[in-house]
């Protein structure tokens, strides 16, 4: 039997906590680490008789996400009740959306969006907490401060193909949402959460394999590791001739183990039905205009602009667009007179950032004006690359203006002419053997000669001009 090549098929379900002032269906302020149960009211505690009322800003934010991922915004959408019992679910139903969500379809990068909908977050259940035990058994304690926080759920089509892909795409989504200014999108704080539906199929096969749902991967690295581990687990099962079982799984990043969450329990039957306590959401032109006006340039759009109007390479465009700590720095530096965007991009990504370590460029001593001016000098060949690195070292260490450093250190590029010609002559004389090899056609031997010139000129000579002179002088 020939070995089957497996293709992973992965869909992601992302929950984003919205940074509104109040909860989804009541006027309690959102909780931020206050003492337990100090941010509750009859509505978010599910008291008898209490009724939900939709937070207008949560709708606006949901629309912003929908626009940002190219979704179709529904003219009319409704809320449904998703019924299940759990101590962190006070009404024993979650108000969510089902077959008439706020937004459907769309695409971000290379992954299609299935739907975007609004719902409410669960409360926090502290396991094994409590000073006591109930009849000798372990107790958990519920804190309802988080309960009812507005959530946007984003469901992708199964277009993700690997753990790395999942991680890269989620990073793109995070930056997109961060740009909208509607969420902290911090995985470690739970304001961005991601579950993955994972299946595998023989490459070339159309039909999907049985999928499992992988939960609670609370960092980008764990998402990548978890998905990888689950793919490996499924391949091992199939190759042993067994079948993957549809179930909900938990990835333990410490051990790398994947365990089943609800093996005993019956399949869920959420008994969705339209929430009778709420009326439909009908997107008005006013709501739509407001959302469109609030929509900033998104990372994907920015990357496109960097490529098409600034002429950056695709890789550089992506790098600069999806990294919020460097995007504004790049834009400001590239706006300086004479600074070419591609030169700014190269020197920012390849030279400045590695020199700064943990420090963001904006927090360094190198101002955007200085860096732009520096790029202008490099672009105009007023300093050689070698000299430029020295100038950059000084900028990082002390700040100041690049022109002043060049002036003070005499690092300006030499004009061609007699002085350089003389130095090249001297270098050829000092490296007879190398000169002989070059004459014989071996240009690689030019290294020692260029090295000699650079030493003599403290790096101010232009490498191209030196090579030209060498060839001329050796009659090539």
């Amino acid at each position, binding site marked *: 039997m020939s070995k089957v090549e497996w293709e992973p098929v992965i869909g992601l379900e992302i929950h984003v906590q919205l940074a509104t002032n109040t909860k989804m269906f009541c006027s309690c302020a959102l909780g931020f680490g206050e003492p337990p149960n100090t941010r509750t009211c*009859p509505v978010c505690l*599910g*008291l008898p008789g209490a009724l939900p009322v939709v937070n207008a800003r949560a709708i606006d934010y949901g629309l912003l996400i929908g626009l940002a991922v190219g979704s179709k915004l529904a003219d009319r959408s409704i809320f449904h009740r998703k019924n299940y019992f759990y101590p962190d679910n006070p009404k024993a139903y979650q108000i969510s959306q089902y077959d008439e969500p706020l937004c459907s379809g769309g695409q971000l990068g290379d992954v299609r969006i299935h739907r975007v909908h609004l719902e409410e977050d669960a409360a926090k259940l502290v396991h094994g907490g409590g000073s006591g035990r109930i009849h000798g058994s372990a107790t958990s304690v519920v804190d309802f401060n988080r309960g009812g926080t507005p959530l946007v759920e984003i469901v992708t089509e199964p277009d993700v193909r690997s753990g790395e892909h999942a991680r890269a795409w989620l990073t793109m989504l995070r930056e997109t949402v961060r740009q909208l200014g509607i969420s902290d999108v911090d995985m470690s704080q739970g304001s961005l959460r991601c579950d993955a539906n994972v299946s595998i199929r023989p490459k070339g096969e159309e039909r999907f394999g049985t999928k499992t749902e992988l939960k609670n991967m609370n960092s980008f690295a764990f998402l990548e590791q978890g998905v990888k581990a689950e793919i490996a687990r499924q391949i091992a099962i199939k190759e042993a001739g067994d079948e993957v079982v549809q179930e909900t799984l938990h990835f333990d990043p410490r051990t790398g183990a994947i365990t089943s969450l609800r093996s005993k329990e019956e399949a869920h039957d959420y008994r969705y039905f339209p929430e009778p*306590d709420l*009326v439909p959401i009908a997107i008005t032109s006013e709501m739509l205009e407001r959302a469109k006006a609030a929509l900033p340039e998104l990372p994907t759009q920015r990357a496109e602009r960097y490529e098409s109007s600034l002429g950056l390479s695709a890789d550089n465009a992506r790098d600069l667009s999806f990294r919020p700590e460097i995007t504004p720095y790049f834009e400001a530096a590239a706006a300086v007179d004479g600074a070419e965007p591609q030169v700014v991009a190269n020197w920012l990504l390849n030279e400045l950032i590695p020199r700064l370590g943990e420090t963001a460029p904006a927090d360094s001593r190198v101002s955007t004006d200085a860096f732009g001016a520096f790029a202008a000098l490099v672009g105009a060949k007023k300093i050689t690359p070698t000299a430029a690195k020295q100038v950059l070292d000084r900028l990082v260490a002390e700040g100041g203006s690049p022109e002043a450093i060049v002036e003070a250190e005499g690092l300006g590029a030499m004009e061609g002419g007699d002085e350089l010609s003389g130095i090249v002559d001297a270098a050829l004389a000092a490296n007879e053997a190398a000169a002989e090899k070059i004459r014989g056609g071996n240009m690689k031997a030019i290294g020692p000669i260029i090295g000699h010139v650079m030493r003599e000129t403290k790096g101010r000579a232009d490498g191209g001009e030196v090579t030209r002179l060498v060839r001329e002088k050796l009659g090539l």
Partner: protein
Amino acid sequence: MSAEDLIALTAAQAVEKIRAGETSAADVYEAYRQRAAADELNAFVYVPDAVPDELPATDTPLAGLPLGVKDLFCTEGLPSQSGSKILEGYRPPYTATVVRNLQDAGASILGKTNQDEFAMGSSNENSAYGPVQNPWDRTKVPGGSSGGSAAAVAAGLVPWALGTDTGGSIRQPAALTGIVGLKPTYGSCSRYGMIAFASSLDQAGPLARDVTDTALLFKHMVGRDHCDSTSLDYPEEVKLPTAQRLDGIRLGVPEELSGEGIEPGVLESFNRVLDLARELGATVESMKLPHAPHALSAYYVLAPAEASSNLARFDGVRYGMRAEGTRDLLSMYTKTRHDGFGPEVKRRIMLGTYALSAGYYDAYYGRAQQVRTKIAEDFHTAFERFDFIVTPTAPTVAFGLGAKTDDPWAMYLNDFCTVPISLAGIPAISIPSGLSEGLPVGFQMAGPAFSENRILDAAFALEQGIGFDGSKARA
């Protein structure tokens, strides 16, 4: 004034007397409080020990008059148990909007009235706090689910009371106890703070001795509430009724709800009111509501489905009872809910859960919603030709305690004439039309959405002509 004289006054008359200084709100309150405290009908589940220290000012619209409040309205600091053991002793931290509105208008709560558990029932026999007796005959039920409110008003234990109506829970007990009950247009009164049975149907409404009192109480209940998304601005001021005649009024009598299944004595009383209506200038015509006979079936899918979800929050975690001795989460849930809910509530939770469960939704819930559309259309069409649709409120007079408890569907048939109107979300009133076998009969009149002023006016004209005497029940 003597306590006896005070009790003989309608609420509107009592307000006048208080305003005129002929009596005081405190005297009226105490006269009723003593009667309510001595209640032998089990109409009240809570009555305070004394007159409140501070009563509303006499220049408020309701002048401090006492009010009976159905148990399921949340009242801050007062028991609010919805007739259920699972909420025994529960005192909520907030007050229902409708109660708050009435308090703002000068009502003072006299007590909480008994009801069928979670408003599920038509006889008040489903209360965890015991059945309520009908003041016309102590061996009979008062109807339900607002049976405590109805019996209390009929027996003169309180001038008026709040009830709720999901499929007939105000109108049917009003009919069986010889008082007036109004189920308002869905959305006209806030549901915030009403312990929910079926959210898309529940409406608060007044139960009172006569049509004028009904209008006066209703006037101060209505209005959009920012805490209830389904509440609406009432489009006009609610007026006290004045009409003496029914000239030009067209009454439609649906064949489906005025023949088969209605007791002869009830039909006789109904027909006498139709004759009276003609005398007062109305035209009366037989007509059809083709889908009305299916209303009960649709209702017994939709209401239990919503209830199964609404009652899921009673899980022993945040309030109410928790079964003793459970060690694990699952048995805490299942045992608490087993011990806390009565048989009818369990039945409806089961029915509703079943109707919503995987594989059955379309056949039950989906179809029931379609039937609801057809029923609403039937009424819509009818109101092109008629001002009001009239029927007997209930097919029988008050029946014996225990007579129908063994057959759920027989009990459900009590609401045969009221449920179609509930599904359409339109308003309807029940007024006493007379007695049959010594027991009160109700006459129901339904109109288009927000036609309460016109309904109250027409009901007032009929009331004058009928001249029903309810004083026997207050004796």
